[in-house]
């Protein structure tokens, strides 16, 4: 009786389990398939219900706040290391000998760079998302002043007399000259596109500014990125050197004698079909060497090797004896060591024709790269001790500083900055996002074409199945989790699908991500890529008069002539807040003859000012051109009745659009109004 009773209960639960399991599993399969838009993702509830939560209790439970060291400065005595902890909005004061963080000084939002005054009394930290510089008294470790800058302050340099601070404004593409006596901005010069790096020549006479994005140009033209040269004495721009076929020139260093300036760079092959990936050469990485003499040559040298690429070069430093340069490669967790005498020798002995050929010579690096040193995840900023014996490496996604002996070229120790021990799923996703290990021969990673998780401003030839051109303007990944479908043709309904099999087939040409990695990279993309604040065009949510007039045009239902604008031709219909997309496909008569026949995914417009060029193939260099050049038939909104004043107002309004988080109130009002109608 007792045994039969137990058996009955077991049988009951077994039957119940089977009844629940089969239909339940079937339901779960349908559910997961619908959420991932693929048919093979494992039935793992945690994938979506835990790791991709953007806010709330669960999000706080599973995610961590990391330090993310980005750039550094070393005191002259070598006893202090000042580390910019980007995610922690702080400057860390580190004792490198004791390997201990002594103090944490809170600065502005998303600090970028730090520089020390000659007397070692002050540190200046640029805050990229606050549009200011924190002035820190190092004797008290206190922020004693905050200096206003242009938009997106990044690289810093001090004038030779330490009276002026040069601040590179990466978003507004200019450089501010701050008077350190008054704290006022004295001048602002336009630079190349999206500048970051800056360095004063050893003689204190010339300031160089590097830029990351290429100058906007029609597809098919040779890519050009600018290095801007400022004369310290006259305080005037004296040079704008176009570096051809290169971009992402993150940083620059001078040899101590000042005979060479060396800049990190990427050479993208965006004009050839992306199918080229399996043949190599999609992206190559190296340095630009600029001779500092009259009619000095500009030579591009690769740091790659045949069948092995060293992606995402970020920082460069040169030892005080001028013998070695160190370059951090964020995409392959490696430091390249360059023998500068070998570079000089190569340049001196090469004919102009040979020098030109080096920019495409993968084997030439063996002539001057003397060592590759492995690091932790995502090495970014580099700093040398004043005697040049130690190299410090900011391992951004390791929350750690690596210490390398510059003679033995070995990592001798690491300094833990005290970040969380746990690597969350999203953090692992960020590591994957920044690592080229998943691409054939390490040619590139997600970050390469999506620097700062945004976009690189280039148009790529994404060859379709029938080998049309299908030019594709790279899109920003900021906060895209809620704006499916993905790709301009809207073929991928979810991030899982976007980064799954198709991604490996078309782009990386390797094995696709395993599901664990796919979950991780999806979690990162959905939860971890915020927009910068729109400090240039909409710092506090109060629209200017022009922006308000532009909003009225954006929202309008009647044109200037009093005619009704068809609902599907109103701005607000396809671009409603908070993302300013209705998530639908649209026809705006921009299909090119080389495109496959298709509709286009309506893009989101948050921070749209930061994403030139525009339209699916980047044909519009500016927002104005969307309508002045490519909207003549009124298929992309009713615009041809507008005056120039009205168009300017509309553009002003579009530039004011901010991150969805700011726009939710606007969205509520919009939807409430629609419902009441």
């Amino acid at each position: 009786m007792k045994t039969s009773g137990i058996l009955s209960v077991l049988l009951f639960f077994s039957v119940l389990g089977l009844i629940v399991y089969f239909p339940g599993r079937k339901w779960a399969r349908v559910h997961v398939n619908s959420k991932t838009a693929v048919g093979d993702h494992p039935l793992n509830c945690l994938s979506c219900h835990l790791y991709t939560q953007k806010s709330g209790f669960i999000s706080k439970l599973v995610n961590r706040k990391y330090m993310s060291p980005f750039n550094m400065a070393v005191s002259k005595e070598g006893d202090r290391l000042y580390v910019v902890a980007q995610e922690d909005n702080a400057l860390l004061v580190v004792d490198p000998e004791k390997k201990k963080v002594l103090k944490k000084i809170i600065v502005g939002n998303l600090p970028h760079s730090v520089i020390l005054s000659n007397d070692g009394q002050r540190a200046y930290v640029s805050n990229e998302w606050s549009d200011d510089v924190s002035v820190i008294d190092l004797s008290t470790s206190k922020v004693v002043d905050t200096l206003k800058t242009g938009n997106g302050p990044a690289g810093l340099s001090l004038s030779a007399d330490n009276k002026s601070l040069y601040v590179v404004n990466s978003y507004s593409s200019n450089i501010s000259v701050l008077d350190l006596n008054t704290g006022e901005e004295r001048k602002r010069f336009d630079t190349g596109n999206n500048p970051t790096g800056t360095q004063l020549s050893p003689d204190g006479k010339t300031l160089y500014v590097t830029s990351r994005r290429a100058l906007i140009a029609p597809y098919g033209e040779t890519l050009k990125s600018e290095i801007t040269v400022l004369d310290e004495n006259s305080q005037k721009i004296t040079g704008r050197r176009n570096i051809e076929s290169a971009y992402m020139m993150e940083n620059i260093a001078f040899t101590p004698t000042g005979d060479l300036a060396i800049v990190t760079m990427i050479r993208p092959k965006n004009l050839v079909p992306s199918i080229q990936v399996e043949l190599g050469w999609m992206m190559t990485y190296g340095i630009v060497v600029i001779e500092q003499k009259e009619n000095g040559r500009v030579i591009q040298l690769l740091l790659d090797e045949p069948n092995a690429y060293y992606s995402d070069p970020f920082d460069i430093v040169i030892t005080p004896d001028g013998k070695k340069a160190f370059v951090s490669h964020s995409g392959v967790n490696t430091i390249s060591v360059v023998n500068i005498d070998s570079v000089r020798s190569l340049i001196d002995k090469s004919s102009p024709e040979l020098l030109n050929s080096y920019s495409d010579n993968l084997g030439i690096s063996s002539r001057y790269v003397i060592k590759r040193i492995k690091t932790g995840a995502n090495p970014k900023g580099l700093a040398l001790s004043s005697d040049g014996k130690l190299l410090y490496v900011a391992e951004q996604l390791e929350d750690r500083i690596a210490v390398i002996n510059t003679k033995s070229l070995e990592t001798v120790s690491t300094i833990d900055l005290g970040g969380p021990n746990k690597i969350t799923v999203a953090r692992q996703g960020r590591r994957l996002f920044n690592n080229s290990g998943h691409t054939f021969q390490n040619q590139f990673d997600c970050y390469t074409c999506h620097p700062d998780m945004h976009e690189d401003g280039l148009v790529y030839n994404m060859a379709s199945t029938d080998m049309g051109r299908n030019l594709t303007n790279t899109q920003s990944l900021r906060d895209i989790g809620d704006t499916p479908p993905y790709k301009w043709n809207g073929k991928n309904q979810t991030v899982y699908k976007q980064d799954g099999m198709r991604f490996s087939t078309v782009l990386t040409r390797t094995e696709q991500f395993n599901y664990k990695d796919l979950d991780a990279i999806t979690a990162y993309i959905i939860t971890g890529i915020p927009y910068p604040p729109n400090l240039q065009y909409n710092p506090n949510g109060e629209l200017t008069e022009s922006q308000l007039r532009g909003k009225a045009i954006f929202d309008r239902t009647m044109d200037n002539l009093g005619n009704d604008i068809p609902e599907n031709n109103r701005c607000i219909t396809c671009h409603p807040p908070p993302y300013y997309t209705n998530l639908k496909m649209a026809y705006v008569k921009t299909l090119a003859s080389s495109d496959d026949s298709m509709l286009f995914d309506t893009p989101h417009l948050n921070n749209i000012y930061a994403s030139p060029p525009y339209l699916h193939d980047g044909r519009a260099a500016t927002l104005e051109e969307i309508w002045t050049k490519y909207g003549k038939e009124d298929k992309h909104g009713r615009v041809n009745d507008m005056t120039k004043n009205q168009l300017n107002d509309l553009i002003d309004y579009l530039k004011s659009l901010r991150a969805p988080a700011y726009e939710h109130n606007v969205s509520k009002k919009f939807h409430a109004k629609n419902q009441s109608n």
Partner: protein
Amino acid sequence: MRKIFRKNIPRTAVAVILCGICSVAVINSQPSAEKSPANAHSKDDAKPMPVYGHWKNFTTKDGLPSDHAYCVRIDGNRVLVGTHEGLSVYEDGKWKTYTTKDGLAHNGVVSIDVSELTGDVWIGTFGGLNRWSAGKFETFTQLNSGLPNDLVYCVICDGKDVWAATAGGAGHYDTYTKAWEIFTEKNAPMHEPWTYGVSAGDGKIFIAAWGGGVIEYTTKTKKFKDYTDPDGEMEIDLLPDDGIVHDITTATSYADGILWVSTYFGMSRYDGSHWKGYFDHDSGLASNFINFIRAKGPVVFICSDKGLSSTDGKSWVTYKKNDNNNDGMAIIKNFGRNDDNTINKTTKEIPLSPSIAHNFIIGVDADKDVLWVATEKGVSRGELMK
């Protein structure tokens, strides 16, 4: 587009009579026999009017791309000239020309200014606006930017701000924020969007608006004020010195607290309280048809269709080329006061050989001891006579 001249016969008749009376009062100046005047000045002048001579003319034979020169700007050791066929730069005794092949928006260059803040050169053309910085041209057009119109008649730099007078309104570009503002009859007290000139001084912008006189914009308060011809008369200045002489203005220039305004019907001077009008019949002005003016300190240089004039408001120096040869003269007119307070008018003529390149003058710039002039038939360079 242009204001239609009103036909008001009774008012015109009164004006003609008044004009005749005025003309009688002005006649009787006698040419001087002096050959070498050091300078021109009236008795109560503190500073003498500068006189320029030793003219040297440049044409296509010297390397200019075109003899049609629209504007000239001195920039340190070099001189920038806008011509019908491009931007030409004179440096170290040589001309170098830049055209659309180099990145110029249009070869018709009609206005040039240099930013004191950055050293960047801003260039107004018939096809857009250029910034020329360290050898690189950046182009703003009505299609790719907020520039009101591609016909940019005048461009000036005022600190970090750039102002452009265009056929579609006045445009203001903030080089820091990279934002454009447009001012037209829709949002400013203009008669129509067509603007010809713009100048800056003492925190104010002075826009020469076609048919709308002068629009004064205070940069701090962002408020407008307009100056129009009070008598509203389009053919003559009915009441002297009652305000701006005509609503169809061609240029403004501000220096030493004085606003100078040119029209095709005479010139005006405004000291902040009072207006004074100048015409060819009652002053040393070469012609009432004035293309452009530029004030430098107390002196204004006036580009007309019949020669180049300059004045400090009292003394006048006019440069004219002979019709039949390359020579010409500088005509100096002084309007001083005698001991009995009556006006003492004197006229002197200094022979010039050669003279300026042509009497149709469109652009001028002065710096220290040098005067450059853009004319219909080449560019002229004069030196201050000691």
